[in-house]
């Protein structure tokens, strides 16, 4: 009787306990779900935000595939009907000519303000004329051949010794100057004629740069002629010993030569 009662009550209590547990469990479940919901919402909104951002930045949608195809067209792709088994992986439906990137390379510098890099003995230029210094009016006797670039094989190693390269180039220019002066010592050499390369502004700047070494080292002098235009002349080694050559040596002249003027 007691036991029964006890058992009953126990079972009741158990049931109650179970029921309560259920309720609690339910509650917990819902809470967990709610938590999950919340999390999901947060995640979802983050994703949504990202998507929204993406959409915003791609508001003006940029189609990379279309861009890539247009680039290929610009670079001269030859489109083929039948896909080459070699090419089909890399360039679907066509192949690029070997000068594809040269084509791009012609276009690209227009968009950059890149300082021209100063390299010496540029053997890699096939398309450039070999003449570095152009003589026009004043020294008609000068032969163009003298200014041809010499391309000994060892110059390819110049990458490693820039200093040497400058020195060699300066030496070469001095020899050219001396030769021309010896050919006709009475006709002054126009500085501009000496340094300007009508085909390349960058080359002109380089020439000015190299000539500056000659004047710095007292191997050449620049003077103004009667028209107030600069002329250049090599200095004989014996001259350098004279006293007054030292006194007059240190003059700085700034000449601006922008591309418009150069043209």
């Amino acid at each position, binding site marked *: 009787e007691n036991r029964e009662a006890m058992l009953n009550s126990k079972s009741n209590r158990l049931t109650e306990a179970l029921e309560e547990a259920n309720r609690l469990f339910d509650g917990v479940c819902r809470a967990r779900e709610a938590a999950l919901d919340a999390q999901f919402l947060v995640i979802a909104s983050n994703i949504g935000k990202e998507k929204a951002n993406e959409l915003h*930045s791609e508001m003006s949608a940029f189609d990379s595939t279309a861009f890539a195809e247009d680039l290929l067209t610009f670079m001269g792709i030859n489109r083929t009907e039948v896909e080459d088994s070699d090419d089909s992986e890399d360039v679907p439906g066509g192949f690029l000519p070997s000068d594809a990137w040269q084509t*791009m390379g012609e276009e*690209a510098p227009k968009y950059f303000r890149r300082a021209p890099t100063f390299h010496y003995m540029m053997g890699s230029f096939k398309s450039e004329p070999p003449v570095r210094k152009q003589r026009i009016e004043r020294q008609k006797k000068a032969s163009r051949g003298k200014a041809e670039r010499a391309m000994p094989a060892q110059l390819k190693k110049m990458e490693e010794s820039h200093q040497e390269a*400058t020195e060699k180039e300066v030496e070469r220019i001095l020899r050219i100057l001396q030769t021309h002066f010896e050919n006709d010592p009475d006709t002054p050499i126009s500085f501009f004629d000496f340094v300007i390369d009508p085909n390349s502004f960058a*080359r002109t700047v380089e020439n000015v740069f190299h000539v500056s070494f000659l004047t710095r080292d007292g191997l050449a002098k620049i003077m103004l002629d009667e028209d107030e235009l600069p002329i250049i002349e090599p200095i004989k080694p014996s001259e350098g010993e004279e006293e007054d050559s030292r006194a007059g040596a240190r003059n700085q002249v700034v000449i*601006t030569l922008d591309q418009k003027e150069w043209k």
Partner: protein
Amino acid sequence: QVSELVQFLLVKDQKKIPIKRADMLKNIIREYRNTYSEIVRRADRTLQQVRKTRKKGKWGRFWEGLTILFPQVFGLQLVEIDTKRHIYILINNLPRAEGQHLCRGKEKEKMGLLLVILSFIFMKGNSVKDSDATILLLLLRKQHSVFGDVKKLVTEEFVRQKYLETTPIPLTDPPEFKYQWGPRAEKETSKKDVLNFVAKMQGKDPTFWASQYNEAEADN
């Protein structure tokens, strides 16, 4: 007498690696004791802000003189890309000229590739994940003969030259990287220029991409 420093700078610039002021100091400064005062004088004269320049001290004024000298003599600009560590690059002061650039070896082709990458990055919102760039890599795989190791060129050379900047994306495993314009790209070109390139390639007006266009205009 400034020609030695100039030579140093130009030679350093050949590889387009930015130049540290400390390096210049180390190598050159003692040579310039004579011309130092001349350069300082030039700085003071040109800047005409005597009080301001005096505050900078001797080195500052010397430096200003040089930065004035460069455009005047060479049409080149010395630009500081890292003001804390005083690192510089040389850029062209003159407007871009068509076909006048004397580039050696593969420089032009590399610039072509770089332009394509910079365009891609800008048009995609100034930052791309390396995984996004697969379409470009697909395009380029064929041209190993031109660029050699394309990945190395892009992830190492262009980054070292400060054309590109790469930063790891946190919490990615395996680690992913994102690519953005580097400080040299920002100085040597502009969003506007790059947008014009894209527009030219696609035969459209730059205003076709409204948000990029607005961003490019605001960049001025």
